[in-house]
């Protein structure tokens, strides 16, 4: 991380010398606190007894806070004759990681056009988003920070940046976006530091090695037909969560990120005064094409449809229906039975999810009240996000919210978060 700080410094010093440039500096200071509602309980039964020294923080002792932090974000935008440079530095004083202020480079990239404006290049650390879903992602396989999302940090922290080269090619019948990430970047998932979680075993997770072949390629082709956008997507890389398991002498020794290839499409456009979208993809679990390996996730089909509109002034309401289906469920189940017995957890053959978003703005849009609910009829679990944002002034913003989980089974996505219910508050001063 130190190296990246130096890089930013170097860019700052050299840029103005290279061209007439304009630097804009802005940012914010924010303080946030999240308090757990209820108790965490014990570690998952499957883990057996975990040595006290290795217990994740949430189980090691009382931990009532999920977030207790102060943050300074500095953003700089440099505009020169030949291109632009953007950087965002976060200095985080994290009360849950005592004694260490963390410096994180959230963005640090250079952008320029070439080939007579037909090519746009963005190189460096940057966030990338595509696809149509509202907090549901099918073809967007760029890294996410689910911990930040679940503990109540601001929305921008759901997106993890990746160190990537992004090419935009224009002037063809379709717009082409190509993102190459040389080093695979995984999602940030609960690991017991702030949030209790479930995993089939308590063993370490291994990232793909830093070989040249272990990067990620993501492609999007898209075109507008009037206001309707049609897109095709492709991805070659790895599952974003460590769904693969390594076993030695029939006991788990580690998790890893199996290879994933995916392709899919989406449509989004205006419908009945609102916006409608549909998206689907095939996830090809390349390490297990026939779905018979109990240690590797099955290939899957995923799809969703959604609709959102304004129902009255300053009120929007939207709904989504999402489905994922395993390709070789029977093969996966029987191979798992053979390896670990019928108690071993396997998700349902079909998993469905409904989401609802309601948002009302009041007092000349200075107060925003929002509800976002996830409910899975197949997993029988749910997740409700409540938020209230108040702009006290153009500079000062107050946020309060709650993250509430419910589930019958502590092994499903929201079920495993059942002990992670929390309320939070944030105060931010922007400059």
């Amino acid at each position: 991380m130190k190296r990246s700080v130096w890089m930013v410094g170097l860019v700052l010093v050299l840029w103005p010398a290279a061209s007439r440039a304009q630097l804009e500096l802005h940012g914010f200071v924010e303080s946030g606190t999240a308090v757990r509602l209820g108790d965490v309980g014990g570690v998952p039964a499957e883990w057996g007894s975990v040595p006290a020294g290795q217990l994740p923080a949430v189980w090691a002792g009382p931990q009532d806070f999920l977030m207790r932090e102060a943050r300074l974000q500095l953003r700089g935008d440099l505009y020169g004759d030949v291109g632009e440079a953007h950087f965002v530095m976060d200095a985080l004083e994290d009360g849950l990681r005592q004694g260490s202020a963390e410096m994180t480079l959230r963005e640090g990239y250079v952008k320029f056009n070439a080939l007579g404006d037909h090519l746009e290049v963005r190189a460096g650390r940057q966030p990338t988003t595509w696809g149509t879903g509202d907090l549901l992602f099918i073809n967007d396989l760029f890294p996410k920070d689910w911990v930040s999302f679940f503990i109540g940090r601001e929305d921008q922290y759901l997106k993890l940046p990746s160190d990537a080269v992004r090419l935009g090619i224009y002037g063809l019948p379709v717009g082409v976006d190509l993102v190459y990430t040389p080093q695979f970047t995984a999602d940030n998932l609960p690991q017991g530091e702030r949030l209790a979680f479930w995993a089939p075993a308590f063993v370490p997770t291994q990232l793909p090695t830093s070989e040249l072949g272990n990067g990620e390629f993501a492609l999007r082709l898209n075109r507008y037909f009037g206001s309707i956008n049609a897109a095709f997507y492709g991805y070659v890389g790895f599952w974003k969560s460590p769904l693969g398991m390594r076993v030695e002498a029939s006991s788990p020794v580690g998790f890893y990120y199996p290879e994933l290839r995916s392709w899919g499409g989406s449509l989004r456009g205006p419908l009945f005064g609102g916006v409608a979208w549909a998206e689907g993809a095939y996830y090809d679990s390349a390490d297990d094409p026939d779905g018979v390996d109990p240690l590797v996730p099955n290939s899957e089909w995923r799809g969703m449809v959604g609709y959102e509109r304004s129902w009255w002034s300053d009120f929007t309401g939207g709904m989504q229906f999402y489905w994922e289906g395993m390709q070789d469920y029977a093969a996966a189940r029987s191979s798992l039975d053979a390896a670990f017995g019928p108690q071993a957890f396997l998700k349902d053959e079909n998993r469905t999810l409904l989401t609802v978003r309601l948002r009302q703005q009041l007092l000349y849009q200075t107060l925003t009240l929002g509800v976002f609910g996830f409910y899975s009829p197949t997993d029988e679990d749910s997740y409700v996000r409540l938020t209230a944002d108040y702009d006290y002034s153009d500079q000062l913003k107050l946020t309060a919210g709650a993250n509430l989980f419910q589930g019958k089974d502590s092994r499903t996505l929201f079920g495993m978060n059942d002990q992670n219910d929390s309320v939070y508050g944030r105060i931010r001063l922007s400059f």
Partner: protein
Amino acid sequence: MKRSFVLFLMMIVVSGVGVAGIAGAQTPDATELMKTAHLNMYYPGDDGVAKVDMRITDKRGKTRTRKFVILRKDWEEGGEQRYYVYFFEPNDVRRTTFMAWKNPDADDSRWIYIPALDLVKPISANDKKSSFVGSDFSYEDVSGRPWTDDVHTFLKEEELDGHPTYVIESKPKKKDYFARKLTWIDKDSSLILREEYYDSKDRLQKVFETLEIKVIDGITTAVKRRMSTPKKKNVTELSFGDISYNVGIDAKVFSERFLKSPPREYIQE
């Protein structure tokens, strides 16, 4: 008014035509006046760039500010047009961009781009009276309500702050958020100087005022505008600066690509 009465008398006396003269005085065509005023207010030139300073003052006198650049290109005079907005302030929305494709015959299409998430989001556009960025101006007030949505009647001629004006009453053809609207159109510039919106119980809802007029690139422009909501004692003032017309904005600027990569040539704070 007085002067025209004297002129009227003189006409009778001098010409001797008398009654015939009165019959010959035509009532101005209200729809034609509204159309011209609408085109002058919302379609000046073929395209335009301006820096906008928006000041929202609430009933306690607290002020919020929005600063943005607005680009506009007309696809058809009085018809389709496209808008592009880049925000400088407030700081927490800095670099956010907004795009609207206005279609008077159907719903508009609107998109917003949130740079911290690299997220392009289409936003539903069925509600034209939703507030634009928390101001007294609705989306429709910013881009102008098509004159074809209302039936217009000429009421009278009147002097408003020293400007001779035509006063026109408009009623929506279909049930809408206001029941009637009075418009004062400047005889000299054919710009709208004032509008009053009334609800179905004839209570004043909103007042629009042109506060300053300048000639820019030969085009008479309302450079300072105000919208007030008397019931809530809330006021929004818009000041347009660095205006230029007919700059030849490329049509492709109004696309997702430029929503994500703002065209720097137009965006200087």
